């Protein structure tokens, strides 16, 4: 707990980090508002004229079907957070567990197997793989999420494994083994908690990657099926832009850019704040 | 009295407003071993860094005073000039040998490099000089050591290799900062014996920085005692141990004697 308090106090001093945190917090609040039913509920209502420009009724104008672009962009915040949170959490947990097991059992077949799997997955061109899995599972509601989790865990696992290998030889782990604590207990109680700095940062990066990947998948028609996302909006906008209507494009890419900027600033600031080497004694 | 090889006058090192080295003055003569002693944090390493011009390039670090190497004033030299002096006229040996050795090159290559660069020797001359220098630091199988790589050597051998490299250019001054603290006691005896012997043969003045009073007593000709940045004593070793001028010195000696065999 004290460690977290210290981290926050360090974060507070980092201006760009604070900016990032504010942006993300704002978007998060918007996502909650959508979930709760207060915002963005009319994203599918086709009550405007086709391709209206920005105006009082529709702040960003309408798309080809007369749907309000602003409503759709706001609803997409919820989509983005859903994907981001689910993928970030699951891939980080999976990566942490597999990385810890590989590191703990370094130089045995378990480590070899996990590392091999990591290598194979990493060798496949990323978007191809994700697209392939999403395609194979299409129709299933979690196809896209699964595809992403299946590839994102490798980076976290690699970093956690390296850290666990280091920690394994430290004296406090040796002492724990000497009194006979089982490996699982040592990992959970002494090793993994000392990798949280890695997990938090990797989680944030996975969040960003998930949102970006969804954009690509939606572009390919393999992403969000029911609902709307910035990716879908961007996919729609390809034809529209050629016809001279930029509303969809600007709204989607603008909001996407802002959220990703905020997340990246936050991730950098967290990495500095959590860096154990800079931890004040 | 001959002219000193190195002459330090009123050397001060400031970090911000604090003087971590406070008006230190001493002379270092050819062929002599001057031990610089003190507990951790007393400023001995900062003094060495100031002499070598190796203080971290930070706005907060400042040094004042005079450091004369023979006729040259080091304090006013730019980095390019200092780089010429370092490794040729003043050499340094640190506690951790691996930081000075390049794992990619063989030991022989690294040692020969010193002769080629600083003594202008040809490739084959340098190789012979390298082998000879290794023998002079007490290494019994120089050919094998020259073919191997730094990570294949034990700590003691690595440190002796570093001493060989440092002395290859026949420097006027050798600064050794805790060179044997990380070594076993029998290895320490080997390294210090070889280093001081070589110093006397070549005429190098050695500034030996240590916290170990046993090392001071057995290998030093004169000793400087530092505490919190200030120089408390400057005496020949025999006199220092027989009649310390400062009570702090007395307490250091008493503590050292208690924990010895």
């Amino acid at each position, binding site marked *: 707990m*004290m*460690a977290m308090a210290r981290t926050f106090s360090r974060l507070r001093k980092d201006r760009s980090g604070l900016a990032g945190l504010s942006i993300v917090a704002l978007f998060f609040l918007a996502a909650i508002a959508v979930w709760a039913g207060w915002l963005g509920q009319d994203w599918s209502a086709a009550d405007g004229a086709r391709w209206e420009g920005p105006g009082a009724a529709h702040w960003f104008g309408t798309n080809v079907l007369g749907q309000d672009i602003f409503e759709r962009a706001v609803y997409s915040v919820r989509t983005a957070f859903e994907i981001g949170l689910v993928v970030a959490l699951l891939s980080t947990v999976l990566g942490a567990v597999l990385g810890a097991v590989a590191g703990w059992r370094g130089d045995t077949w378990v480590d070899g197997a996990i590392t091999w799997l990591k290598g194979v997955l990493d060798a496949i061109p990323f978007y191809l793989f994700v697209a392939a899995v999403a395609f194979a599972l299409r129709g299933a509601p979690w196809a896209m999420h699964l595809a992403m989790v299946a590839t994102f865990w490798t980076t976290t696992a690699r970093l956690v494994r390296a850290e666990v290998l280091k920690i394994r030889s*430290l*004296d*406090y782990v*040796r*002492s*724990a*083994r*000497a*009194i*006979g*604590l089982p490996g699982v207990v040592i990992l959970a*109680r*002494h090793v993994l*908690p*000392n990798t949280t700095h890695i997990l938090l940062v990797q989680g944030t990066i996975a969040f960003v990657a998930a949102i970006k990947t969804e954009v690509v998948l939606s572009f390919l028609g393999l992403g969000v099926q029911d609902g709307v996302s910035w990716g879908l909006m961007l996919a729609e906008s390809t034809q529209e832009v050629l016809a001279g209507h930029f509303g969809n494009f600007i709204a989607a890419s603008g909001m996407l850019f802002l959220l990703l900027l905020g997340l990246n600033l936050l991730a950098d600031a967290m990495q500095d704040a959590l860096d154990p080497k800079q*931890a004040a*004694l | 009295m001959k002219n000193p090889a190195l002459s330090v006058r009123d050397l001060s090192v400031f970090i911000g407003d604090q003087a971590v080295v406070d008006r230190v003055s001493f002379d270092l003569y050819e062929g002599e071993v001057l031990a610089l002693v003190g*507990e*951790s944090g007393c400023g001995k390493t900062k003094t060495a860094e100031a002499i070598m011009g190796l203080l971290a390039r930070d706005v907060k670090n400042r040094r004042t005073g005079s450091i004369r190497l023979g006729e040259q004033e080091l304090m006013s030299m730019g980095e390019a000039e200092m780089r010429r002096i370092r490794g040729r006229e003043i050499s340094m040996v640190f506690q951790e040998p691996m930081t000075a050795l390049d794992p990619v090159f063989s030991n022989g290559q690294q040692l020969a490099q010193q002769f080629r660069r600083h003594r202008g020797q040809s490739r084959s001359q340098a190789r012979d000089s390298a082998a000879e220098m290794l023998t002079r630091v*007490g290494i*019994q199988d120089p050919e094998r050591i020259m073919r191997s790589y730094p990570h294949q050597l*034990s*700590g*003691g*051998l690595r440190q002796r290799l570093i001493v060989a490299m440092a002395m290859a250019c026949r420097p006027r001054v050798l600064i050794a900062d805790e060179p044997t603290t990380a070594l*076993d*006691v*029998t*290895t*320490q*005896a*080997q390294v*210090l*014996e070889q280093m001081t012997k070589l110093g006397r043969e070549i005429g190098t003045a050695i500034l030996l920085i240590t916290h*170990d*009073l*046993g*090392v*001071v*007593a*057995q*290998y030093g000709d004169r000793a400087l005692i530092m505490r919190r940045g200030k120089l408390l004593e400057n005496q020949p*070793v*025999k006199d220092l*141990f027989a009649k310390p001028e400062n009570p702090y010195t007395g307490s250091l*000696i008493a*503590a*050292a*004697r*208690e*924990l*010895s*065999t």
Partner: protein
Amino acid sequence: MKTQRPTPLLNVSEISLSYAGRGKQPFEAVRQVSFDLLPGEILGLVGESGAGKSTVASAVLRLQPLTSGKISFRGKDIANARSADSRDLRRRIQAVFQDPYSALSPRRTVRQSLVEPLDHFRMGDRDRRDAMIAKTIESVGLDTALLERLPNELSGGQRQRVALARALVCEPDLVVADEPVSSLDVPTQKRITDLILELRESLGIAFLFISHDIGVVRRLADSMAVMYAGRIVETGPTDRLLRHPAHPYTQALLQAVPVADPAQPAPRALDGEVPAVLTPASGCVFHTRCSEAFAACREREPAEVPVTDEHGTTSRHHRTRCHLWNR
């Protein structure tokens, strides 16, 4: 005068430990090492890097398996301990290691680190545990206020005391201390060695104290064992061994220490290096560097024999592995 030694607490008998070498021959880190430890005795295990001291510690703590030989604790073989006995063993033999900065789990408070062994060994209820922790933390000279702190708020010396408290809190019979003071400055070393002596007096705990520093061992240990290249070359009561070192390596070790008095003789350096391959072709492992080696030394490994002192008395307790004493 022969004194009959009572039953040892720890009996290490002809143990050897080998590591798989990198593709080549196995690397014998420890070879046929034997020693005893009585209840409440402090044995100093001395030697330089690579001598095998930490490997011996790992063997006693069962962190590494033996290749051959036997270790018995309170009369029973520890290698074959079954689960209830094994758990009991783990409580009775505790460890303290060298580096105070990695000795404690960084995100656990001092209290949490001390509770862990009590919890693992299911000792006492909550109140009793609090009492035991308070008593132990005070016995190592620390204030109970430190219990709620994290390791990075403590100095090196304080952390090492906490590590010692953690070893003591479950009331062990034996503490294996592997270079526990080597990373500390001289005044702190002195305080902690004094503390260990006090603990032995008040609690009767035995210590297997491993160190490369003979000065520290001299203050602490009742008896000493000197290791070189995986073997014990000499062992005996501390005073006797230091006054009359029998083995040439022990003598070299003592002579290499620089004394803080310029009037005393200069240290004598020992030529050569520790043999790279720790299973030499033949003979005594030290013969390549020994100034007194003769024919037998190159041919046969010496057996352990008692040392005769200047009065001609032999002490069973002072023994050495050297042909010079076996002629």
